[in-house]
């Protein structure tokens, strides 16, 4: 504690509320500058203290619990040089921000029709936390995710080295793009202290096209009874990815057809989302059209939904838009977009009381299960879903799950480049002091 105090950075003792996936750190530091973070990291390096960076803490329960955690570095007081939190260059459509700022603060800039086109399903989340977890919402389909909008980054490494990459211009290919490496790195490579983003013109109008499709027998059929362990293979989606094609037409096949039409529409929707409320319910598909002539374009999209169910255009988003389906037990399935329906069917046939929501156009779906699903059922769900999604060319990660539920489960799943990833970690953090154990393969 003395060594940390000598840095002059505000410190406090940690409490139960500061837990990182159940592991309570010893202290919390509240640095105000990048130099403060560097001083803290040097002190931690000298005393072999393990560090976890955090912002608002909205995703601190995501990922594996850390092997150890001495210091939580809270970035919310971090400011840019000069004391500001935001430096907006409207003429350049660029903004430089401190990592501790709420990312939603960049959703609009008073006096300018500009926005950071990054949807954040966790509205309180900070810039740093959003980058570190690479979480994104519906408009990822058009604008990509944080890595596609980030043009510069400042980070502090485990040994206290401060490094920048990128810059203040969108077009820039000088040097390696460390920003991309830090996006989704879960705090295992260093602390992100500043970010520069490209902005987009804020759309003048928005319209949502919502289609409630009917449920089909497949989605109502329980697999082996709710709460049971592994469903038998006969109940698995038949012919999921077999060369002979998909299963018999059902709500999920129809969903894929509709989502594909929306995504390919020359009216250019920015997002095509799906929400499946669980066994017995039909999936709702919603598309967002934004910008000039939104109404006219929305009507063109609506016409594609003919015969698919109850369809309408609205000026407000559906209530579930850009939200996660749950928080305690949350998984993320990634499949090629045309596999979205198959992925949801794979969830449905397991008969658990699940909910699925996400981007049908990008094939990124969040799945929630009841917190009382039970360890065995959970483990069986993860492992069998991985088999099914693997056949579709996708995968499954556990974003959040209480320790008891996920014990023994590989939250991240297999990855081809793991040996390379380990080598990157070894170079950046040879003493394993940055969020140790939180990440893929126990990195």
């Amino acid at each position, binding site marked *: 504690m003395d060594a940390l105090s000598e840095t002059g950075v505000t410190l406090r003792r940690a409490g139960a509320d500061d837990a990182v996936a159940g592991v309570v750190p010893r202290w919390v530091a509240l640095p105000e500058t990048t130099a403060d973070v560097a001083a803290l990291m040097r002190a931690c390096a000298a005393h072999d203290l393990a560090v976890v960076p955090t912002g608002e803490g909205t995703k601190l329960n995501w990922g594996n619990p850390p092997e150890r955690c001495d210091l939580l570095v809270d970035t919310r007081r971090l400011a840019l040089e000069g004391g500001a939190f935001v430096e907006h*260059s*409207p*003429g*350049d*459509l660029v903004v430089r921000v401190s990592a501790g700022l709420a990312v939603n603060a960049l959703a609009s800039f008073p006096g300018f*029709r500009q926005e950071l086109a990054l949807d954040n399903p966790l509205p309180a989340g900070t810039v740093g936390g959003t980058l570190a977890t*690479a979480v994104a919402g519906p408009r990822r389909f058009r604008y*990509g995710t944080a890595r596609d909008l980030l043009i510069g980054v400042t*980070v502090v490494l485990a040994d206290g*080295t*401060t490094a*920048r*990459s990128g*810059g*203040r*211009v969108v*077009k*820039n*290919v*000088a*040097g*390696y*793009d*460390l920003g*991309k*490496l830090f*996006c*989704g*790195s879960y705090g295992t*490579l260093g602390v992100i202290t500043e970010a520069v983003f490209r902005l987009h*013109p804020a759309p003048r109008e928005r319209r949502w096209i919502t289609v409630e499709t009917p449920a089909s027998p497949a989605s109502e059929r329980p697999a082996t009874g709710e709460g049971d362990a592994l469903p038998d293979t006969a109940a698995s989606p038949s012919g999921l990815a077999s060369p002979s094609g998909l299963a018999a037409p059902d709500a999920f096949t129809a969903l894929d057809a509709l989502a*594909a039409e929306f*995504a*390919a*529409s*020359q*009216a*250019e929707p920015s997002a095509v989302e799906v929400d499946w409320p669980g066994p017995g319910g039909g999936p709702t598909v919603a598309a967002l059209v934004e910008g*000039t*002539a939104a109404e*006219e*374009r929305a009507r063109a999209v609506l016409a594609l939904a003919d015969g698919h169910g109850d369809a309408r255009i609205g000026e407000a988003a559906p209530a579930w838009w850009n939200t996660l389906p749950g928080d305690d037990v949350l998984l993320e399935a990634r499949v*090629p*977009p045309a*596999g979205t329906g198959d992925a949801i069917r794979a969830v449905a046939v397991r008969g658990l009381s699940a909910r699925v929501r996400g981007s049908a156009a990008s*094939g990124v779906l969040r799945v929630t299960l009841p917190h009382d699903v039970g360890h065995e059922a959970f483990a069986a769900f993860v492992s069998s879903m991985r088999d099914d999604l693997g056949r579709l060319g996708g*995968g499954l990660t556990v974003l959040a799950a209480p320790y008891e539920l996920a014990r023994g489960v590989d939250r*991240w*799943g297999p*990855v*081809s*480049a*793991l*040996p*390379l*990833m380990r080598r*990157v970690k*070894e*170079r950046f953090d040879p003493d394993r002091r940055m969020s140790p154990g939180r990440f*893929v393969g126990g990195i």
Partner: protein
Amino acid sequence: MSAKTLEEPVRRFQEFLGHGCVVTDPVRLRTYECDGLTHHRATPGVVVLPETAEQVAAVVRICAEHGVPFVARGAGTGLSGGALPRTDGVLIVTSKMRRIISIDLANRRAVVEPGVTNLAITEAVRDQGYYYAPDPSSQQVCSIGGNVAENSGGAHCLKYGFTVNHVRALEIVTPDGDIVELSENDPGYDLLGAFVGSEGTLGVTTKVTVRLTRAPQAVTTLLAAFDGTERGGRAVSAIIGGGILPAAIEMMDALAIEAAEAAVSCAYPEGAGAVLIVELDGPAPEVAHQFGEVTRICAENGAFELRTAAGAAERAAIWKGRKSAFAAVGRISPAYIVQDGVVPRTALPGVLADIDRLSREHGIRVANVFHAGDGNLHPLVLFDDGEPGAAERAELVSGRILDLCVEHGGSITGEHGVGVDKSRYMTKMFSDDDLDTMQLVRCAFDPLGLSNPGKVFPTPRLCGEVPGVRKGAHPLVESGQAEQF
């Protein structure tokens, strides 16, 4: 390293690839001595022409075993010497890896081998209403593997982004010779994002999964003539400030127009001191609205002539002058340097004035062609290579332009890459700590430093070295294996 050291590797390449795919004939080797940046030349020790990822992996593994450096090369159109061969090493040419492996429109993606040309992807899906968005000006010949290495952009990247935004997965051969897949859908570090744009220093691309983009419903191209770049620049600011994101906004100054007229008779409006090409694409009602706005903005900012392309032929006519600009300056100058730098868009007027001042001070003409929407300048620095001292003055002006870019918070390269040409400028843009941190990535992928060594980074550091304090001369410099600038 002597030719003798390559004897054993060459024998093993022949064993794995067959004699026809291993080039050792000095005359043939010389055809590979440079890429699009022709003043850097080196004859490769040996050239291999693999046909499969397994063959690339075998070559790289042999290189690793023998400590032989290797350089990957696609079509050789790069403009920063990124594919400059090593006389003591192997040049891995991907020209025999040109298969389009699969096209999957349902998932808007295609899987291709690295030697496939950029345009070939678009041509394969155009009839189905799709295309591959990044469009570097060399797209007819440049390879997708080279695009991945350089993170290539193009005129339309203002709206659509760069190669890195359109690559979903890569199969690479690591500098150890392992075949690894990097996919956007895999959990873990975004090694895909780190690899794209690493200029061949992290391994060799053997397969690319690209994102296909739906063709826009409408495309409108217009050309506006101004008395000079200042007014043209003001129009650009007003368009962007008005919330319009065109697919492309290009500007040419008087000298660039003169060159283009001399070369391709593009018939741009007479007396224009600057022309602006604005291309709008997207849903028809949106394009129609934006066209009205852009027309009004150009007129308000002093455009004295506006032309609109009514179809593909007229669009091509408008683009003709712009696309020929680099080569065209050959008509008005015996020699020239193509520069590539970026400034924040709002700094454009000041930087153009500074370039003009530099030009007059040193008696060197500079023609300006630029992607005005994103502040990416391509000054063409003209000189007479027959005149003593002119090349040096041109080099000086060209370098000073990069200094201007850095001083204004921009970049030393927007799309041509660092390669060998600009590695000495990296320290102007990045601190030692920044570069040492990038070097950590290099060392993770390529601890032996065999993958395209001598590119991108100014000072090679051995991967065992502790970053930070450098004491005395670098061991590679001392042993004569490297030099510092």
